[in-house]
Structures are given as C-alpha cells and as structure tokens.
C-alpha cells in the first residue's frame, strides 16, 4: 500500500507487519506521554526529587543521551572538515541518531523545568555566569543544526524528491553542509564541555570538584572527549542493532571498522586522561578538601569501588584496547562487546557525575542519601527510547538512510530463460524492469 513511498531498489516488510511492531512501541510511548502530562498537570511532586536531588534520573538521562548523540557531531567533523569521505555511508544514520538524542534531551528538559511555558526565560533573562546557560544556548542551536542536517534526508523521500523545489532545496543544503557541520562541532564542543564543567566547579562537593585549566575544570574537557569517543561507538551499536532487526547488512565493514578505529583511539586517549584525572583527584584534590577516597565508596548500600572499576576499567580500558587493535576490532563479536561497553561506560560516567555526587555526604553530620525514581520518572525516561525506535523505524522504511543498502542487498529477480534466479543489485534490477516495460511502448519519435 505504501510502496510508492519506499526508496527505490530496497525491500521492506509488508505494511501490516510494520504497523503491528510500530503499534507495540506506541504502547510504551503512550505510557511515557501519560507520565509526562501527569508531571505537567500535577507538578514535580510526581517525582521523587527533593532538596538533595534537584538533579535526578532526568538529568542523568539528559547527559547520557547528549553524550551518546555525540556521534553526530564527531562523525560530521570527520566527514566534512577532516575529509574522511568513507564515512558518508554512515553519516546519515549518525545524524538521525543525534537528532533523536538531542530532541529527547530537550523533551526531558521540557518536563524537568516544571514550567515549560517559561522555557524562553533562559534565553532572554540569561544568567551569564552559569555554565548551564551556555548549555541551553548551545544545545538549542545544535538541535537546529541537527534538524537542518536531517531535513535533506526527509526531502529525499521518493515522492517528495519529485517536487523540483524540494529537490533543489535538498541539493543546496547538501552543498553547504560543511558549514552547518562546522557550526555543529563548535556548539557541541562547548555544550558537552559545559555539562562537565557544572560538576567540576562545585568546590563544595569534593566528589565532583576538579582542578582547572584557566576557568575550565578538567571535567569540561573530559566530557567533550568522552562524547567524541563514545558517541561514534553508540552509532556503530545502533547500526549493528538495526542490521539485526532488518536481517540484512546495511553498511560495509570497512566503514564500520574505520569509525571504530577512530572512536577506539579517541577512547584510548580519553581513558588515559580520565585515569590520570581520577588518580590526581584521589591523591591531591580530594584530600585537600579534607576527604579521603574511601569516603566516596564506602558506608552505603549501593556505591562501592565496583562502580569506579566498572566505569574506568571494564567500560573504558577494555573497549579502548579492543578497538585500537586491528585484529580484535575486526572480530564481529569483540566489536559488539567493545561498542556496547563504551556506550555503557559513558552512561555510567554521567550517572556517577550527576547522582553519586549528590548522594555523598558533604558535612560531618550528614548521611549518604540514596534515591529511587518514581514510576513517572522512569516512564518519561523510557519515553525517548520508544520515540527513538519510532523515528528510526519510520525513517528506515521511507528514507534513503543507508546509501550502501542497495549494493549490499541485491533483490532476487527472474533469471535468464534457462530458468533459476540470479542476484543483481536492486537498482539495476529496477532499471531492467523499467527497460522491459518500455520495450512494448512506442516512443513519440518512433511513432
């Protein structure tokens, strides 16, 4: 029924099957939407946030999706500015994932501010001494950039592309995409960094406070670095997952391996810097504030040294070493493990820097305060996942996201008269079909 909208030369599942799966995802989405409206109508008393936890599950999810969406700006930087042209085969998907991550982040913030109608205050009545103002500015502008990067893909839909103005607009946007990509990289550098800077400048919380380079704490650089390292890993992970669900190869191995190699070296250098930062903090910075390393990881029911080992060793060193070594990187199972661990690692890092910071007692008479989110917080945090799956499903079905899909998945067509079938690239098959159809028609000149 929707064949006319599906890109030429690719095969998609029947519409009822597609709608069935999409319907299941919409149930989860609806659950999140109900919770979102409860928070808007009844207020933030629907959450378990309190005076200890002004930042809670939402802000963790916000920082995590922003880091995971970092694949868009870093892949764009590599493709458009540094000139890694092979990445053109995955840049569309990186942009789509970035678009989903950043729109989710803004959606979560829209719930978290409690008074979304006053959201514009941060732009007009800006507190220029706050790192979060910089985050709001850059995040919003970068979301515009992602919309601009995603728009040509939408315009390339088979039917839309037939409209001359739409076709020309899409073409012109491709022509100057490098300018948008450079702006995106500039904005991303600052908002990723400022998100890290928020904890790094809090000298009253020794767990988060770090030494500075000029006005920037080390966490400023570590956040940008980790997003540039783990964002592309998440892009690879989602591409691999899409290939599993689509039951076909969508991107050639050499493209994946190139991105994995660059992400691996970024992760390797990041984890060296992170380890040095952690050691310096444990040996110099924290003791200078009258605290000991052990006081951050003991005497409570949840946070132990395990989380430090999980973040730095298991989800940092292990994937970095897998990805920088050619043999291990090109082993499919190890690649799956490495990109999954890297994506998990950056989310653990954000959890630690948002929630463990608030759990640690900072005064002698205080105790550890742990936090359990309410179901409304959980539902609104899962909402972006359902939203992301929805956008990916629709985009994959109707837009030419993967330029190598046709070449990698030739459609089976009727073979020569001797019988049997043969595989030809789908686009070629369509051309042949069109030629066959045209054979019976008299062209005007011939007529």
């Amino acid at each position, binding site marked *: 029924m929707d064949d006319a909208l599906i890109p030429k030369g690719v095969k998609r599942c029947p519409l009822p099957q597609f709608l069935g799966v999409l319907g299941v995802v919409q149930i989860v989405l609806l659950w999140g939407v109900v919770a979102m409206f409860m928070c808007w109508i009844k207020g933030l008393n629907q959450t378990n946030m309190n005076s200890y936890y002004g930042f809670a599950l939402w802000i963790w999810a916000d920082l995590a999706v922003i880091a995971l969406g970092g694949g868009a700006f870093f892949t764009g930087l590599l493709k458009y500015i540094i000139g890694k042209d092979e990445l*053109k085969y995955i840049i569309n998907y990186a942009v789509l994932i970035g678009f989903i991550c950043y729109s989710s982040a803004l959606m979560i913030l829209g719930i978290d501010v409690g008074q979304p109608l006053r959201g514009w205050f941060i*732009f*007009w*009545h*800006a507190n*220029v*001494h706050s790192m979060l*103002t*910089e985050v709001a*500015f*850059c995040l919003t*502008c970068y979301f*515009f*950039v992602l919309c*601009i990067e995603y728009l040509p893909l939408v315009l*390339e839909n088979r039917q839309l592309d037939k409209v*001359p*103005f739409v*076709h*020309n*607009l*899409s*073409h*012109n*946007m*491709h*022509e*100057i995409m490098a*300018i*948008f990509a450079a*702006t995106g990289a*500039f*904005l991303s550098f*600052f908002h990723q960094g400022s998100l890290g800077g928020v904890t790094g400048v809090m000298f009253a919380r020794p767990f988060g406070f770090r030494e500075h380079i000029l006005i920037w704490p080390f966490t400023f650089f570590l956040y940008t670095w980790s997003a540039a390292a783990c964002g592309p890993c998440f892009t690879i992970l989602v591409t691999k997952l899409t290939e599993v669900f689509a039951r076909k190869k969508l991107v050639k191995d050499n493209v994946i391996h190139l991105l994995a190699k660059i992400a691996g070296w970024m992760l390797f250098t990041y984890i060296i810097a992170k380890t040095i930062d952690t050691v310096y903090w444990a040996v110099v910075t924290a003791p200078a504030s009258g605290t000991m390393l052990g006081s951050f990881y003991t005497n409570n029911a949840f946070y132990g040294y395990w989380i430090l080992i999980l973040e730095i060793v298991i989800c940092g060193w292990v994937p970095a070493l897998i990805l920088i070594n050619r043999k291990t990187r090109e082993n499919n199972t190890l690649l799956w493990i490495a990109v999954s661990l890297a994506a998990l690692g950056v989310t653990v890092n954000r959890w630690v820097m948002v929630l463990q910071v608030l759990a640690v007692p900072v005064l002698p008479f205080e105790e550890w305060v742990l936090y359990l989110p309410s179901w409304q917080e959980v539902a609104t945090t899962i909402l972006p996942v359902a939203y992301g799956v929805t956008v990916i499903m629709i985009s994959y079905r109707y837009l030419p996201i993967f330029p190598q899909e046709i070449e990698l998945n030739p459609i089976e067509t009727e073979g020569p008269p001797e019988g049997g079938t043969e595989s030809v690239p789908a686009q070629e098959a369509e051309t042949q079909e069109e030629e066959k159809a045209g054979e019976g028609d008299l062209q005007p000149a011939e007529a």
Partner: protein
Amino acid sequence: MFPFSFEWIWDTVHMVFHGGLWYALNIIGIGMTYCIIKAVYDTVKGNGGHHH
C-alpha cells in the same frame, strides 16, 4: 537578550555568551536563507541539482 534590554551590561561575559549565540543563530539563519532562495531561483530557471 539584546543590548537594548534593560538587563544588558556591557561586559566581557555578556558579549562572549550572547555573541556566541548570535553568531551560531546567524550562520544557521543565513545558511538556510541562502539554500531556500537558491532553490527558488533554480526551480524558476529549471536547473536541477544532483544528489551526492
């Protein structure tokens, strides 16, 4: 916030923060305006681009 707003102060922080914001918004705005005007021009002239 613009310099003519009552909250505005002529100091480095305001100029850097808001200068960065306007810089980014201007690039986005000018870039998109260029694409749209050129698309209208190309359509009227009957020029068709090709995709990459």
